[in-house]
């Protein structure tokens, strides 16, 4: 690891993500104003004074809303990606490790995956919202479920590569069982790929949550969410465009940050570039 130069994308991505995370963390202990307090006197307050970015038509401070919105965004991203990783990775690893005699298992897992893959995340979320009531939880679950196939595919492909290496053959010859090989050899070797996949999925989850909140199927009012801030600013687009500008910018930068982070991590963790460390020793 040491001695390699960090690339620009990774640094920029890390910085953008850092800002979002910092804003979210700070919002737990401090925001400039109560983000949900309606104040008729401060309706559409111009930026300035104690209100750095102004206020919306309810007189709520835009900056405070953005900060708490960052919290919502990260929360959705973490849970959705968590669901996808926890469900998708074992499925992919199992499919990748299935011996030829049990090829049907691999086929079954991957075809079911294809089925879920064909289903748009937004549609699934709207459907779940209609049945179980819209909310952050249903949005997270829907986005998570829709992201499972991405993890399963990446995990399967990487696992298949690992399974033909010499050290896995050696481990098998030594009588190691499947689960032990998976934990000891497969997971550590595909981990970097999964981290890259996670950061990319995170960006997609942020967009999906914003889109759902925009449509009214995401985070419930009045909990601030970047998507709903955009939606509420729609009718004021011509008179007070800044209300749409800030949440739009926040979404764009957060998504850019996670994508850059993902790309940077991929370059950084690419096994082909890992000449210094060499491959794992068989045990």
């Amino acid at each position, binding site marked *: 690891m040491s001695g390699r130069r960090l690339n620009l994308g990774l640094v920029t991505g890390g910085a953008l993500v850092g800002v979002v995370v910092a804003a979210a963390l700070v919002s737990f202990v401090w925001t400039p104003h109560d983000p*949900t*307090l*309606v104040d*008729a006197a401060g*309706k559409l307050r111009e930026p300035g004074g104690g209100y750095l970015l102004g206020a919306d*038509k*309810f*007189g709520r401070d835009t900056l405070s809303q953005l900060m708490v919105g960052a919290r919502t965004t990260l929360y959705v991203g973490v849970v959705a990606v968590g669901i996808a990783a926890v469900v998708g990775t074992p499925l992919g690893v199992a499919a990748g490790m299935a011996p030829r005699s049990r090829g049907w298992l691999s086929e079954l897992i991957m075809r079911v995956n294809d089925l879920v*893959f064909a289903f*748009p*995340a*937004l549609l699934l979320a709207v459907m779940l919202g*209609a049945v179980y*009531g*819209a*909310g952050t939880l249903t949005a997270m679950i829907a986005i998570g479920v829709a992201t499972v196939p*991405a993890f399963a595919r990446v995990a399967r492909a990487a696992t298949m590569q690992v399974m033909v290496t010499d050290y896995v053959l050696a481990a098998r010859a030594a009588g190691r069982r499947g689960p032990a090989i998976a934990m000891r050899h497969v997971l550590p070797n595909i981990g970097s790929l999964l981290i890259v996949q996670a950061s*990319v999925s995170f*960006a*997609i989850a942020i*967009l*999906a949550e*914003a*889109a759902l909140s*925009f*449509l*009214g199927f995401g985070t*419930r*009012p*009045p909990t601030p969410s970047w998507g709903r801030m*955009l939606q509420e600013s*729609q*009718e*004021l*687009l*011509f*008179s007070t465009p800044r209300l749409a500008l800030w949440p739009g910018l926040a979404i764009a930068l957060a998504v850019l940050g996670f*994508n850059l982070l993902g790309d940077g991590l991929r370059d950084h963790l690419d096994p082909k570039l890992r000449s210094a460390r060499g491959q794992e020793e068989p045990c």
Partner: protein
Amino acid sequence: MRRIGIWIALGGLLLGTAACGGGSGGRSGGTAAKESLSVGFVAEPANLDFTSTEGAAIPQALLVNVYEGLVKLDQDGKIQPLLAEKWDVSPDRRTYTFTLRKNVTFTSGAPFTADDVVFSLGRVRTDWKLKIKTQLDVIDKVDKKDDTTAVVTLKRPSNGFLYALATRLGAMFSRTGVADLANKPVGTGPYQLGVWKRGDSIRLDANPKYWGTKPAVSAVTLKYFKDATAMNNALLTGGIDVISSVQAPESLQQFADPNRFTTVEGTTNGEVVLSMNNGRPPFDDKKARQAVRYAIDHKALLDTAWAGRGKLIGSMVPPTDPWYEDRTGDYPYDPAKAKELLGGKTYTVKMRIPNLPYAVASAQVVKSQLAQVGITADIEPLEFPARWLDVVFKQGDYDMSIINHVEPRDMGIFADKSYYFRYDNPEFGKLLASADEGSEQQQSDDLKQAAKLLSDDAAADWLFLFPNLIVARKGVTGLPQNAIAESFDFTGLAKQ
């Protein structure tokens, strides 16, 4: 692939509204542009049969325009003759003799006679499936005296009878024209159904055989939009000529240019009600309900949630009803009093609202204001109409809700204790019954008292009266100032 897919989806969302407006713009600019008008609406009817399907969208499109009744409501809420030239009421107020207009024909060609009156009013009891049809239960019998005279006998005197005839309940149907009401309406009105493109629009063509003043425009297209912004953009780009009801009042500034647009602002029958479930804790306690009424700053709510458009009323009676009284003084904004009434207790309540713009906006203000006095309201927007009607309206599984009650003279819903308010006060029912039977003065007195009783009991809170906000392209005339009947009256529309 996946990433691109979602980018496109989001891009589509943000740009979709503009695209919709542009798309419809191309279509309406065809031939005969001078003689046709298109009007944007928010809810499309499920079908065209208002005798069996609930919902305000059907009479909004068809009543007065396609179907006519014996009488109709004018812009001030007064009853005016329509298919009946005049009517006489017997001294005991139980017999109404209607003299019908001559030379009136249905669009099918059949003549309109007293037989159709007997048929149509009789059908209300036998074939209609709406809840409101009980309003005509007061009819004892309907007789034909001669071709142009119909006599209606009531079981008891009723002030509400003639008014009910001005609603969809009084619409006149042809004996040969009721086979396919859902798709083929047959009426006597100035318009007839042209083309119905489901999911998009309904075109009404002028009826060439109309008995009265023929409409100035040869066709009116009712265009349906799911999204307020899409409708705004359609007007900006020339896709439609009129927005029948502005759903995003802050956006009115876009239409401020008097050289391009005309704005009409009037009143409606729509009371935006903050309903509270009187049948279960905590709002089975009158003090808790009163606390809510004191805790809400109605002026601030109207200013923020609906751009100050609308009127504060404080009761279930709109200003266009003769027995209207300003009841906003009953519960002035007083958070200290609210806290006192709550006695230091705090509550967490379910606020299940329809996912409609005014409800979502108002709910956030209500939540913020209730939080100041110790009531935590969890907002849960439900899909409207299906889910909200099922969960809140039918099952009554809610603590608070917000909905615009648009039906005319609808204070009576509080007399039904199975209605979702679960309000139960026999005194209120008695007042309504005596109002219906008594003299006009008695009616007015009783209804004023009934409205006061509701307000004192804090059976609900009345956030504001929904405004009638219409925006039209400059040159469109004859727009209704007030939306107090069930229909959007196209008969006076013209384009210069």
